[in-house]
């Protein structure tokens, strides 16, 4: 029973397309995150939501739009995909806002051609 699940796990698309990645957590956590891991394995936060409210927007281009329909879901929509968007995107959740460990999904590898 996966705690934080992301779909799709792999996504290959052309430049200029629009794509979405979905994330769901069944841990009852209030806070959810999107992290980006680049080709050098560096992990950087993109967004954080607490109970459907945007808390962190880490200077991410506005082509990236997170959406949280409820506190168990945080989706990521990307418009006009660029080559530099190729990365692994991780969804995560935490029990307590701003404190403590994150529980990660398995990651979604996005390849933009």
């Amino acid at each position, binding site marked *: 029973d996966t705690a934080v699940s992301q779909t799709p796990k792999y996504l290959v698309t052309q430049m200029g397309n629009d794509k979405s990645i979905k994330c769901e957590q069944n841990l009852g956590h209030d806070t959810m*995150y999107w992290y980006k891991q680049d080709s050098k394995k560096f992990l*950087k936060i993109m967004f954080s939501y607490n109970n459907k409210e945007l808390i962190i927007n880490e200077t991410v281009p506005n082509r990236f739009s997170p959406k949280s329909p409820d506190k168990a879901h945080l989706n990521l929509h990307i418009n006009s995909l660029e080559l530099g968007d190729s990365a692994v995107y991780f969804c995560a959740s935490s029990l307590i806002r*701003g404190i403590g460990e994150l529980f990660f999904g398995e990651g979604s590898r996005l390849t933009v051609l």
Partner: protein
Amino acid sequence: AQTVTQSQPEMSVQEAETVTLSCTYDTSESDYYLFWYKQPPSRQMILVIRQEAYKQQNATENRFSVNFQKAAKSFSLKISDSQLGDAAMYFCAYSGGGSEKLVFGKGTKLTVNP
């Protein structure tokens, strides 16, 4: 801003031996949390160990232990009796000071040789 530095991009260890991965961080906060995460080739991020800054005792989880030096802002991970399954990227991470986010180091790739 808080930063986390892992000075060893790669490390290797013989199976059954001990290895220590280094991590330093920069913060002006007194209350925070530190973590080591493991990322095997499967890509899944797995929590290895956590340390609360207010606790003086070093955290231990089976073969994994930390050396937390608060004054020096150092948080190293020791893996004892290394196993082939320990081969992975290891990330040191910091959370605290009211910040909503976990800040990661750049990672250390650990190879375990049979």
